[in-house]
């Protein structure tokens, strides 16, 4: 299908771009499938969390799925460092949903054998890890990019970060250093306008957030992040520039967070009903479905079939996680020597 995209460059110059790219129908369908799978998995996880089937925190990707699906595919081959809100990124990076669910359940068959949990998902064989410290993703991905360039790995480093992370020192330090060292690095800001309950816009006088990259000599762009095919087209353009130009870039995607910061604090507590409705209207699942319907890649029946297919897959993954054994307690003291 043909994808038309438009995005705003905000650094070094302010310039509107539009482009048209051909994407294979299979890939567009695969994005939607991953997004639906993630939503189904998270729906099941939220219900299970309500029944206290596992512990800890639960930050949902709901609303961020299109950015994950489109960016990861456009950036491959790449190494991705994700945030505390990374279920969609994990699935887009090819992490097995059963192993993902098992980790969230603290089981031995989880990707980290139960030692990481929902915020510390690592699957190095997929080129993927996450950290629960806001902003810490950025220097780690930048370091990977340095090795990738020096060892000619042909890969780029990708860090996801939220709007709140844009105010972390480690991020700002890396924005300074990455262009100076010409690192093949893509920073993906998922701007959902909320840092937990705090409105990011209240605490920075520079808008958009990406505009501050001008002060660092870093290329930066702003775009809507709700249609996976459009996200892919934009990311593909920019990744091409990173690879060809040997310099880093940042893309700030506008996304709606469709849940509370974590699943014990409902976001009704700090969001008006009207804003909640606005966010639901921006649901990337709906936006991506519309785009595929318009292009004739899928019809309504096809979407329904896909939805029930992934629902079953998610249920199987959750059941397997639930049934899987906990790690042997002797493993509590290994892997740290």
């Amino acid at each position, binding site marked *: 299908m043909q994808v038309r995209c438009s995005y705003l460059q905000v650094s070094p110059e302010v310039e509107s771009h539009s482009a048209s790219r051909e994407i294979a129908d299979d890939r567009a369908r695969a994005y939607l499938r991953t997004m639906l799978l993630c939503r189904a998995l998270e729906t099941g996880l939220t219900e299970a969390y309500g029944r206290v089937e596992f512990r800890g925190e639960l930050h949902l990707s709901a609303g961020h799925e299109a950015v994950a699906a489109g960016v990861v595919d456009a950036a491959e081959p790449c*190494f991705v*460092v994700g945030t505390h809100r990374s279920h969609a990124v994990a699935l887009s990076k090819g992490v097995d949903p059963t192993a993902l669910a098992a980790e969230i359940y603290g089981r031995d068959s*989880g*990707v*980290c*054998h*139960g*030692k*990481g949990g929902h915020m*510390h998902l*690592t*699957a*190095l064989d997929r080129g993927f*890890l996450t*950290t629960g*410290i806001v902003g*810490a993703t*950025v*220097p*780690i*991905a*930048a*370091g*990977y*990019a*340095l*090795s*990738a360039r*020096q*060892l000619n*790995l042909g890969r780029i*480093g990708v860090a996801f970060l939220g709007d709140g992370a844009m105010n972390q*020192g*480690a991020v700002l*330090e*890396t924005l*300074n*250093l990455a262009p*100076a060292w010409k690192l093949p690095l893509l920073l993906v800001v998922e701007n959902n306008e909320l840092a937990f309950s705090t409105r990011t816009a209240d605490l920075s006088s520079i808008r958009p957030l990406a505009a501050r990259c001008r002060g660092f000599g870093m290329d930066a762009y702003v775009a809507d992040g709700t249609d996976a095919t459009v996200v892919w087209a934009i990311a593909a353009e920019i990744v091409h520039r990173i690879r060809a130009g040997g310099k880093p870039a940042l893309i700030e995607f506008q996304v709606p967070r469709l849940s509370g910061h974590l699943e014990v604090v409902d976001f009704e507590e700090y969001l008006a009903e009207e804003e909640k409705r606005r966010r639901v209207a921006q649901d990337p699942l709906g936006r991506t479905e519309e785009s595929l319907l318009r292009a004739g890649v899928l019809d309504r029946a096809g979407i329904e079939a896909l939805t029930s297919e992934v629902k079953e897959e998610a249920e199987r993954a959750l059941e397997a996680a639930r049934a899987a054994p906990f790690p042997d307690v002797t493993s509590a003291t*290994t*892997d*740290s*020597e």
Partner: protein
Amino acid sequence: MARELYLYEALNEALAQRLTEDDRTILLGEDIGRMGGAFWVTKGLQERFGVERVRDTPISESAFLGMAVGIALGGLHPIVEVQLADVALVALDAIVNELAKLRYMSGGQANLPVVIRAPVGGYYGDAAQHSQTLYATFSHFPGLAVVVPSDPFDAKGLLLSAARGGRPVVFLEHKQLYGVPFMQYGTKGAVPEEPYTVPLGAAKVVRPGSSATIVSVGYGVHLALEAAQELSDSGFDVEVVDLRCLKPLDVAAVRRSAEKTGRVLVVDEDYSSYGLSGEIAALLLEHEPTRARLRSFARVAIPDVPIPFSEPLEEAVLPSTARVVEVLRRWT
């Protein structure tokens, strides 16, 4: 006669040999390139190995220590110099939450061959923010080895072990021991030219004795040896154990010496609260055969105050030969 080097020269040789034997090793840090490092440890290495492998960083510890984790994940082996241990506190998240924990949190997937080198210590009037050793701070967190050499031979062998070990290591180098002309103490020691290793986690009895044991690391070992020498005429025969590594800690060596002498003094150039001295006391008391033989325990460490600037004030809080001798005389 064996060749003698200052400690900074021994470290420089270890780094040069590591850069030669392993083309994946790179050095990062503030002023390590053209200047060769604040304490000369990387002198000449950028000229020899190039700017890609010996990289000057901006004063952005959070960025470059966080990057060290990603660099290791990407396949290079970073050895990072932090200009002073004190400033590593700026980047404690990168060191503690990322570097130290990732192997464990990932269920053993992530092996991170990262060495963080940092000059430590006082005795030259650099006051509260530039004189700390932070021995206990770095040793507190799971996932890091912590090494403190006390002489040029160990410095070279321990650094090569750390670099070859494939795990995160914090390597703390006492400023007074470097041998640079702007620090007063450092002395030369015999260092073989060829690469060699000293294993991590093995303490060394640097002075055998039977009357009392002094446990220490780094510059403290030298204070202990001076004090032991001062008492030798009186027939009080002090054993000095150089831990060399705070983690892994050679508990067996400490207990062995404690059981032999029955008296243990810990000399620790770090705050006494929640530190090495308390840890050693606990390890001795927890072990029944040692506890049964332990008659006396004491510590010479920094009281619960920041390190002051003025010379007599600094002398009053940092461990000194005089304070060590004072404790030992009580035991004679």
